[in-house]
């Protein structure tokens, strides 16, 4: 600590301002470094554009795709994918809460849920895609089905842990203040399970997001609309490799944004309440 401050003073910086800003700058600096490395590698070794385009070209393709100096096509693909995931997310959360709600109220329900979770959690739900196509056809429903299957089990598992770790004293408190079953759920169980729940939502979203992109790659278009995964694969087919990279970048950026979103939620809830270390 002391050395950092001395270094900072030597560099002519206000030590407190320096030690405050530096940790926040670390990540952007690393990202910039990696991007520079990418650009330099492609330029120096003259890597063919059809194998690995330079970052600057990808960035241009991305900006063009988003509608600045070109057709805003990326938005539609991205939105298509996002809307499938969001719909599946809502279904999964409701399913997980209902399933876990049953599980905590009966021994059979508990065993059933843990067995089913045990069966499906290790199964990459993308493996169910061929069956989903058989049942639902080449439709949005098929995609929603596989995404739900990838999200609901980790969600249910984390909710179960969350409910199981509610402090017994809080349950007694709920009985003491004459909370109804629903009241106890709302005032005691759900808030107590929130750290585990946010963890589950985060993991669930990650699984779902990966699954949908993979499914679109395999699957192609669903009816009239197609998503970002399809766009990436299509770019390869039409040898528009730079556009394909731009599509990959979109997937990465969305993953990054949702991750930050969860962190913001945590900052205003569980971290603030001291239920989880910041």
């Amino acid at each position, binding site marked *: 600590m002391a050395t950092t401050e001395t270094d900072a003073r030597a560099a002519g910086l206000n030590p407190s301002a320096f030690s405050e800003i530096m940790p926040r700058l670390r990540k952007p600096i690393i990202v910039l470094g990696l991007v520079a490395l990418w650009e330099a590698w492609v330029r120096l070794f003259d890597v063919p554009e059809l194998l690995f385009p330079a970052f600057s070209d990808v960035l241009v393709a991305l900006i063009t795709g988003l509608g600045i100096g070109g057709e805003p096509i990326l938005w539609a693909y991205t939105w298509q994918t996002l809307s499938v995931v969001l719909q599946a997310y809502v279904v999964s959360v409701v399913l997980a809460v209902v399933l876990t709600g049953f599980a905590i109220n009966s021994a059979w329900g508990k065993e059933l849920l843990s067995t089913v979770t045990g069966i499906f959690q290790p199964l990459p739900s993308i493996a169910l895609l061929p069956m989903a196509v058989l049942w639902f056809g080449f439709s949005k429903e098929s995609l929603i089905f596989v995404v739900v299957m990838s999200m609901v089990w980790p969600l249910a598992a984390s909710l179960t842990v969350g409910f199981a770790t509610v402090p017994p004293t809080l349950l007694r408190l709920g*009985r003491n203040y004459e909370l109804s079953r629903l009241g106890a759920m709302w005032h005691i169980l759900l808030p107590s399970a929130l750290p585990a729940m946010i963890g589950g939502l985060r993991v669930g979203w990650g699984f779902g997001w990966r699954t949908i992109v993979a499914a679109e790659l395999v699957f192609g278009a669903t009816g009239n609309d197609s998503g970002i995964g399809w766009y990436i694969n299509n770019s390869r087919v039409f040898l528009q490799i730079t556009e394909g990279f731009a599509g990959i970048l979109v997937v990465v950026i969305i993953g990054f944004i949702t991750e930050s979103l969860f962190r913001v939620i945590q900052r205003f809830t569980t971290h603030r*309440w*001291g239920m989880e270390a910041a």
Partner: protein
Amino acid sequence: MNDILAVRTSESPQRAASPGEANETLLSVRDATIQFPAPKGRKGAVVTAVKNVSIDIRRAEKFVILGPSGCGKSTLLTAMGGFIPLSGGAIELEGRPVRKPSMQTVMVFQDFFQLLPWKTVRANVEFALRQRWPRMPRGERRERAEHFVDLVGLSPQLNQYPHTLSGGQKQRCAIARAFSVSPEVLLMDEPFGALDAINRERMQGELNRIWEEGRPTIVFVTHDVTEAVHLGHRIMVMTEGPGQIRRLLDNPHVGMLPYDTQGQESVAELREMLIPAG
């Protein structure tokens, strides 16, 4: 609205009298026996935690149950609160059997997890008030919560979350919450047991002061002899295995200051009683 305020400000004629003289039984325990299934052993084997205990708790007294760890005193208190059923005998509050927990008998627990971590000090108290009087106007609820937080000396921490409070402050908040709903009986299960010696002594003095305010009926469980002498108008000594009444005595030294030597004789006498015979 006036009724609710009356709870706080005025003292009913019976309450004004010294608790020993009023002699009105509020909570009566008749031949209470509590058994649990033995942890391991033959089918049907039981452990008797409490055996044939009969006591009459009088209105507006501080009644202390004193006994060694594991003597069944907390179990008895939990049964008084309606949290666990009796195996034999009866517990009645103003002549009505206690069957389940209610806001007539509010419990203050030993462990710090009794506060809702996602609610501030004020919100923890308001939560209880909302349960007790759902139709109480918002402003009045606020005012009443602030009054009780002030009573326990926690006003500076009014808007803090529990994880920012010290152990003693957390217990103060729990006490404010319990007092705020004006229960018929306050059940306190070693509330200062997890505090350091200095804080414990301070909280005992504070509890005596707060009690003077509205003279609620308190049943206080402890294994600390000095605490019993500080707090209890009457002290019931329990023996272990199975929990039975050893002695029930009036305590002339209630409210004694820590450095007061007069009560030391009682303390020594009680300590003697707690040493297991043989």
